C-alpha cells in the first residue's frame, strides 16, 4: 500500500506541553497543584510579575526538557539562554513571556510513527522552554462582554514547546504523531495528560499551490484531526475555484468543527525578542550522560521486549504499550498466568471496556484479572461469561470470584449440557428436519435453545459441535 498525497499536503505541528509533574513552576517556588484550588492562590511576586521580583530557573524543569529532547532523539545545545517575548495581553502579568529564541534547549530530533503507508519519520525541528500565561475567563457573551477575569495560578507553569518539520501528510498521521508524543511524555513521567490544558496544539498546513495557514490552540488530538480535515477541505475548495489561500492564523471552533480567520499575516505580532537580563545563560550539555542513564524504557523498546519476553503478537504488544499503566498492569498479570492469554484479554477486551466507560486501568485489580484468566484457562467459565465478569467488575465493583458465584457463571458440567441437548432435540423435531433439509439457521436456533436451558453457561461453540454431530 502506498500513499501518493496527491494534494501535496504538508503539516507541521507545534505542541505546548505543560511539565505538570514538576512540584513547582518554571521560575518560582509556587506549587503546580492548582487545578482544584481557588483562583490566585498559587501566585507570588515572580509569577505575578511584581516589580523587583527575581526569577530563578527550576533545575528539574531544565532536566525534564532535556530528557524529552533525548527521548525524541534531539541534540542538546551547548549554551542557551532565555528571551523576553513581548506582547500585551492580560494573561501575561509582565507584558512579556519568558521564552527561548535562537538557542532552544534541544533541536534536530526525529520520531517514527505508523504512517499512511508504513513507518514515517517525523523530524523534530526544536523544543524550547517557556512559561505558561494565566487563565482568562470572559464574563457574559462574546459580543456583550462585561469584563474579563484573570486567574494567575497557571502563570509561570513550565512549558515545553515542541516544533516538528512539516513532514506530516494527513490528519490521521498528525493524530498518530500526537498520540505517540503523549505516550513518550507519559513514559518520561514529565507530564500528566489528564490535567486540563496539559497539551495544546498549533498546526501549520499547506497544500500544493497555496500558502500556509496556522490553526491555533487545539485542545485535543481528536480536535487536531478534525481541524486539519476541515482546513484541507477549505483550502482544496479555494484552490479548485482558482482562489488564493492566504497566509493567516485561524481558530478552530471545536463545537462547530470549523476553522475561522483570526488575523492575517499583516496583523501578525512583532514580538521584539530580547535576552532576559534577569536570567543568566545555561550550559548544561554535560548532564546528558547522567540523564541518558535515567531515561526509562520507552514505548518502542518496551513493545519489542514484550514481544520477545512473552511471545505475544505485535498487535497486542502495541495495544499494551500505548498506555504505560496498562503495560505495567499486563506485566503483573503475565507474571502469574499464561502471558499470551493475559495479553488477549487485557489488550482485546479489558482495554476496550475501559475506553467505552472512560475509565483508566486503576479501576481494575491485578488479582481479579489473574483469577479470571485462570478460570478461562481451566475451562471453568466461557469466554462470554468472562466478558460479563469484566463488565460487572467495571460497572458495579466487587471481585471476580464473587461475581462468578453470584451470577452463576460457573460453566455447567458436560453431562448437564448433554442432557440439555437431549431435551432440546426431543422437543424440536421440526427444526431438526429443517436443518437436515439444508436450512442452516435452524442449527443456530437449536444452539440457542440449549443456551437458554443452561442459562448461558454452556460454551456455544461446543454445543454447536455436539448438536451437529448428533443430527447429521
Amino acid at each position, binding site marked *: 500500500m502506498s500513499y501518493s498525497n496527491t494534494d501535496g499536503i504538508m503539516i507541521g505541528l507545534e505542541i505546548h506541553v505543560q511539565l505538570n509533574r514538576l512540584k513547582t513552576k518554571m521560575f518560582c517556588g509556587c506549587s503546580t497543584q492548582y487545578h482544584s484550588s481557588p483562583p490566585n*492562590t*498559587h501566585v507570588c511576586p515572580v509569577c505575578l510579575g511584581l516589580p523587583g521580583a527575581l526569577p530563578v530557573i527550576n533545575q528539574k524543569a531544565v532536566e525534564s526538557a532535556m530528557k524529552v529532547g533525548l527521548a525524541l532523539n534531539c541534540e542538546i545545545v551547548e549554551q542557551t539562554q532565555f528571551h523576553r517575548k513581548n506582547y500585551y495581553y492580560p494573561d501575561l502579568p509582565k507584558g512579556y513571556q519568558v521564552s527561548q529564541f535562537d538557542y532552544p534547549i534541544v533541536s534536530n530530533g526525529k520520531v517514527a510513527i505508523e504512517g499512511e503507508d508504513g513507518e514515517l519519520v517525523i523530524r523534530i525541528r526544536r523544543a524550547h522552554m517557556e512559561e505558561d500565561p494565566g487563565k482568562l475567563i470572559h464574563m457574559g457573551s*462574546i459580543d456583550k462582554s462585561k*469584563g474579563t477575569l484573570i486567574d494567575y495560578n497557571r502563570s509561570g507553569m513550565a512549558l515545553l514547546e515542541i516544533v516538528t518539520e512539516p513532514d506530516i501528510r494527513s490528519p490521521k498521521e498528525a493524530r498518530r504523531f500526537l498520540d505517540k508524543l503523549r505516550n513518550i511524555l507519559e513514559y518520561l513521567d514529565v507530564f500528566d495528560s489528564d490535567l486540563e490544558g496539559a497539551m495544546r496544539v498549533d498546526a501549520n498546513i499547506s497544500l500544493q499551490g497555496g500558502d500556509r495557514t496556522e490553526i491555533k490552540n487545539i485542545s485535543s488530538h481528536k480536535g487536531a484531526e478534525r481541524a486539519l480535515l476541515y482546513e484541507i477541505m477549505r483550502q482544496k475548495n479555494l484552490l479548485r475555484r482558482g482562489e488564493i489561500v492566504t497566509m493567516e492564523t485561524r481558530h478552530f471552533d471545536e463545537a462547530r468543527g470549523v476553522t475561522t480567520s483570526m488575523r492575517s499575516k499583516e496583523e501578525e505580532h512583532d514580538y521584539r525578542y530580547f535576552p532576559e537580563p534577569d536570567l*543568566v545563560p*545555561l550550559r548544561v550539555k554535560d548532564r546528558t550522560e547522567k540523564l541518558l542513564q535515567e531515561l526509562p524504557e520507552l514505548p518502542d523498546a518496551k513493545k519489542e521486549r514484550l514481544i520477545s519476553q512473552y511471545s505475544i503478537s505485535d498487535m497486542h504488544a502495541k495495544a499494551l504499550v500505548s498506555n504505560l499503566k496498562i503495560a505495567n498492569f499486563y506485566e503483573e498479570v503475565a507474571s502469574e498466568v499464561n502471558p499470551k492469554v493475559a495479553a488477549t484479554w487485557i489488550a482485546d477486551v479489558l482495554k476496550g471496556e475501559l475506553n467505552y466507560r472512560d475509565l483508566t486501568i486503576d479501576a481494575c485489580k491485578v488479582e481479579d484479572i489473574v483469577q479470571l484468566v485462570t478460570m478461562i484457562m481451566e475451562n471453568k467459565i466461557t469466554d462470554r461469561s468472562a466478558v460479563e465478569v469484566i463488565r460487572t467488575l467495571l460497572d458495579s465493583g466487587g471481585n471476580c470470584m464473587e461475581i462468578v458465584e453470584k451470577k452463576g457463571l460457573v460453566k455447567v458440567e458436560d453431562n448437564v449440557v448433554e442432557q440439555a441437548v437431549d431435551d432440546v432435540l426431543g422437543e424440536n423435531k421440526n427444526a431438526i428436519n429443517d436443518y437436515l433439509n439444508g436450512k442452516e439457521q435452524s442449527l443456530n436456533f437449536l444452539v440457542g435453545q440449549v443456551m437458554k436451558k443452561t442459562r448461558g453457561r454452556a460454551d456455544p461453540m461446543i454445543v454447536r459441535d455436539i448438536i451437529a454431530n448428533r443430527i447429521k
Partner: protein
Amino acid sequence: MITEEDVERISWLARIEIDSSKSKEYAEQLNSILDYFQQLEELDTSDIEPTYHVDDLVNVLRSDDIKPSFTQEEALENCENKKDGYFKVPGIM
C-alpha cells in the same frame, strides 16, 4: 528607514496611543537614533565572543521545592478591580 506607518504600527504593538500629527516627528527622531547606532556597525566584531549576560555566571538554578505562595487576599491587595478572587479587567476578546 522608519516610516510614519511604522511609527503607527509600533505604537499599536506597544498599546501606546499617539497623536497622528506627531508621527512624522517621531519617525524623524527614531531614524536619527538608528543612524547613531549605525556607526556601531563599522566596528569589526568578527573575533569577539558575544556577551550573553553582563555577569560571567552560568547555571543559576534552584531545586524543585515548594515555597509558600501568597494568600488570595495578599495577591489581590494592590488591585482596584477584582471579583470573586479574580483580577478584573475590561472585556478582552
